[in-house]
């Protein structure tokens, strides 16, 4: 049962349009509708705001600005857990970033609310803002350093060295389901139908903001139309819809517009990296350095770990990875799929490709030569370190030996053809989680967890694991997820959701089997018959996982997942247009729970890597700080026409240091170094190395052969 490629159990309701996502829920009955007016400047204050016309407009029930919005818990400092912070809205006249809410309208219909928002007259007091990531300055305050030996000396000694600067742009998660909330204040209890990746985590910050006991807040996110990190922290739609329903006593629906999501939900910060590598002539690294400058806000420190990937990917006696910050006046950064490693690996794996060329070495050979079984940073054995297996297996399956060894040496009609490879790696984390499994005498098993299914297949894999553990068919298992009333886990994020939830569920099932065995032995045929006989009211247990820091397994080993990606691209000889021709990923990520859904998630991640290499970039206007390309017409993401057949192979794997099921996570891993493999393929095709991502035609054209 575990591992089988079983079709998603929520498939039938999703393909028929019956699954109700947040804004589609009918539980609260008809709703009022909210609309946010965002600031039209990047930094300054609201000097005057006139809402009289909006208040008098048809259907309008409420218009709030900083002058009349309800009092909320004050904004909190950046210390402490980002999940627990308050998020007061319309709290002052200050404008910290373009699009920040300056007014909120609630009306009987969406059309009325939107039209009324357009009647609000605003005068701004503009202040100069900082909107450009300028590069490494003289006064850098280095953070998160990880160091060994003396990298400066190793760089001096060489003999083969590489020192290059790379930049990665702003990225946005932009899941297809718009950020949305229906809030319903009823009998002193706040019910939210919210699109969220974690639910119980949100009640602390929301409770403090609303000045409400977290126990008086319920959040239900039964179906979530994608997250990719953007539905982890608390956002304004939950706060404003909640305040409005509490003020009006009627349910309120607030859906952000696609353009608003580019300003009101965080982005992946832009970065500039300086990579230093040195090696012996036979390809042993003697220096590995990665300095990264990361965009932040002064009052927020989402620190995209771009340099962190260099800590444990390859062995080198001299090593230094570290980050510095530059604060700009844009919205707070947030997790975006593959935080740290997506940009970081794209950069570092480009640099490794450059070094391989300097050495005259096969880039796979260079990576194999610097493989390690000891985490160079934590100095612990790496569990399940199978990077070499991924590289070798992929090389074989992809036909790496047929690659053009010299750049710009292969033509296919009007296309220059190139191959590229890159490694992937992603930390594995376990967090504390509880899952309840209950056997009902009527022949059903119920599993309850506040874990979400954001397209990750949670409903399916949890049922598979419990079915196997209890020896019952999947059709007799009901999985109930994503509600604050269920036992608390840590939601979907950081690639930990599947392992946390299934391990805890399996432990609960094991407890149930043990209790049944005490009274019925182990030789029974029908578990439900034994439950009926010995536990007429049903029987339930809660299984748990511990946070890594409390789990002894995690003290003896460092845990990651691994992969290698292989790309073949064509570059148009005249226009510089890049087309992905084929791609393969090979992954070692512990035991796979469902071969079908896991493959899909890995392929999806790989396409994110392709997108990062070739397409995605949020463009911030350097004068006014607004997102110039903040919609799907101009923030380019892959379409059907961009993506050929892609395959992902999962190596037979089991990491007993992770947990007793041998399971790790795959949500970020596919994205991993995939961008690097595409970038390296483009170089191999053209001989042009673009270090400023994404690789667009304008950057390729001047250098084309």
């Amino acid at each position, binding site marked *: 049962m575990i591992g089988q490629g079983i*079709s*998603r159990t929520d*498939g*039938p*309701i*999703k*393909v*028929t*349009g*019956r699954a*109700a*996502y947040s804004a*589609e829920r*009918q539980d609260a009955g008809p709703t009022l509708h909210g609309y946010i007016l965002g600031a039209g400047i990047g930094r300054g204050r609201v000097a005057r705001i006139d809402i009289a016309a909006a208040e*008098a*407009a*048809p*259907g*309008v029930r409420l218009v709030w600005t900083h002058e009349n919005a309800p009092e909320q818990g004050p904004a909190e400092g950046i210390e402490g857990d980002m999940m627990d912070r308050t998020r007061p809205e319309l709290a002052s006249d200050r404008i910290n970033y373009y699009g920040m809410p300056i007014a909120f309208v609630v009306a009987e*219909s*969406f*059309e009325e609310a939107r*039209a009324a928002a357009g009647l609000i007259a605003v005068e701004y007091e503009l202040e100069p803002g900082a909107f450009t990531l300028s590069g490494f300055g003289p006064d850098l305050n280095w953070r998160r350093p990880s160091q060994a030996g003396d990298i400066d000396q190793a760089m001096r000694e060489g003999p083969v060295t590489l020192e290059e600067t790379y930049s990665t742009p702003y990225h946005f998660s*932009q*899941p*297809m*389901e*718009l950020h949305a909330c229906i809030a319903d204040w009823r009998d002193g209890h706040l019910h939210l139908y919210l699109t969220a990746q974690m639910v119980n985590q949100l009640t602390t910050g929301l409770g403090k903001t609303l000045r409400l006991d977290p126990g008086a807040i319920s959040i239900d996110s039964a179906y979530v*139309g*994608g997250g*990719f990190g953007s539905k982890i922290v608390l956002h304004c739609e939950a706060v404003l819809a909640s305040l409005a329903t509490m003020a009006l006593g009627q349910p309120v629906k607030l*859906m952000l*517009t*696609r*353009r608003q999501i580019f300003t009101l939900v965080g982005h992946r910060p832009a970065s500039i990296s300086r990579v230093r590598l040195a090696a012996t002539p036979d390809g042993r690294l003697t220096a590995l350095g990665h300095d990264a400058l990361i965009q932040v806000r002064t009052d927020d420190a989402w620190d995209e770990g771009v340099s962190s990937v260099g800590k444990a990917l390859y062995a080198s006696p001299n090593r230094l990875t570290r980050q510095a910050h530059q604060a700009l006046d844009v919205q707070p950064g947030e997790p975006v799929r593959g935080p740290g490693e997506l940009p970081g690996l794209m950069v570092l794996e480009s640099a490794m490709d450059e070094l391989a060329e300097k050495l005259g070495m096969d880039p796979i050979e260079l990576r194999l030569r610097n493989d390690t079984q000891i985490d160079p940073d934590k100095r612990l054995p790496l569990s399940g370190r199978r990077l070499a297996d991924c590289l070798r297996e992929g090389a074989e399956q992809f036909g790496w030996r047929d690659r053009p060894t010299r750049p710009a040496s292969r033509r296919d009609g009007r296309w220059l053809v190139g191959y590229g490879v890159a490694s992937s790696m992603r930390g594995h984390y376990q967090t504390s989680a509880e899952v309840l499994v209950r056997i009902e005498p009527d022949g059903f098993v119920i599993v309850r967890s506040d874990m979400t299914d*954001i*397209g*990750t*297949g949670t409903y399916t894999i949890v049922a598979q694991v419990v079915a196997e553990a209890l020896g019952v068919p999947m059709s007799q298992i009901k999985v109930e997820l994503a509600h604050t009333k269920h036992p608390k886990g840590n939601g979907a994020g950081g690639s930990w959701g599947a392992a946390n939830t299934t391990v805890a569920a399996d432990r609960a099932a094991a407890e149930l089997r043990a209790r049944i065995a005490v009274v019925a032995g182990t030789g029974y045929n029908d578990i439900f018959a034994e439950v009926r006989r010995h536990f007429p009211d049903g029987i339930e247990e809660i299984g748990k996982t511990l946070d890594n820091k409390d789990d002894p397994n995690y003290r003896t080993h460092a845990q990651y997942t691994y992969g290698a990606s292989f790309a073949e691209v064509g570059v148009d000889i005249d226009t510089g247009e890049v087309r992905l021709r084929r791609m393969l990923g090979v992954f070692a990520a512990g035991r796979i729970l469902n071969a*079908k*859904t896991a*493959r*899909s*998630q890995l*392929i*999806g991640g790989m*396409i*994110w890597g392709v*997108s990062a290499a070739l397409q995605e970039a949020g463009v911030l206007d350097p004068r006014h700080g607004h997102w110039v390309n903040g*919609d*799907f*017409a101009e923030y380019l*993401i*892959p*379409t*059907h*026409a*961009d*993506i050929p*057949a892609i395959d992902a192979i999962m190596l037979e794997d089991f990491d007993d240091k992770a947990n007793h099921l041998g399971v790790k996570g795959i949500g970020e891993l596919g994205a991993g170094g995939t961008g690097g493999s595409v970038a390296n393929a483009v170089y191999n095709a053209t001989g042009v190395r673009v270090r400023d991502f994404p690789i667009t035609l304008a950057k390729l054209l001047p250098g084309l052969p």
Partner: protein
Amino acid sequence: MTATPRLPVTLSVNGETRTLTLDPRVTLLDALREHLLLTGTKKGCDQGQCGACTVLVNGRRINSCLSLAVMHEGDEISTIEGLGTPEALHPMQAAFIEHDGFQCGYCTPGQILSSLSVIEEIRAGVPSHVTGDLEAPIPLSDAEIRERMSGNLCRCAAYPNIMAAIRDYLGEGA
């Protein structure tokens, strides 16, 4: 405060006659989602850039967010709810499940309706950007299908699996 003026409109939705009295600014998408509670048609951008809101109007696919409901007097609207049910899936819906042509499922109703339209458009000889010979019958090639499906974005990036589902459906001799 004056009341918002409203206009009556009669639509045929999945074969059923529905009469609504609507603010003329209501899009066809919001008429379906907010007024008829047919939420299978998704709002992914509300500005014609994602295809999540794809429905058929008199047999042709359109982005329902770009069209006002009151413009559709007498039109026949087909949505995902009219295609198949969880108990009796349309073969294309079954193929999407079999090939895992979705992850979160939010773009999926639009992808499914588009995929069926794409096949019809190719068979009817409607050319696309990638069509070579405009005189010859258009092949049901991967390139033709991908090109015509490109108005339906999938951020989960289920594209290879969606193509596999469409191929499988075509293989069934539909």
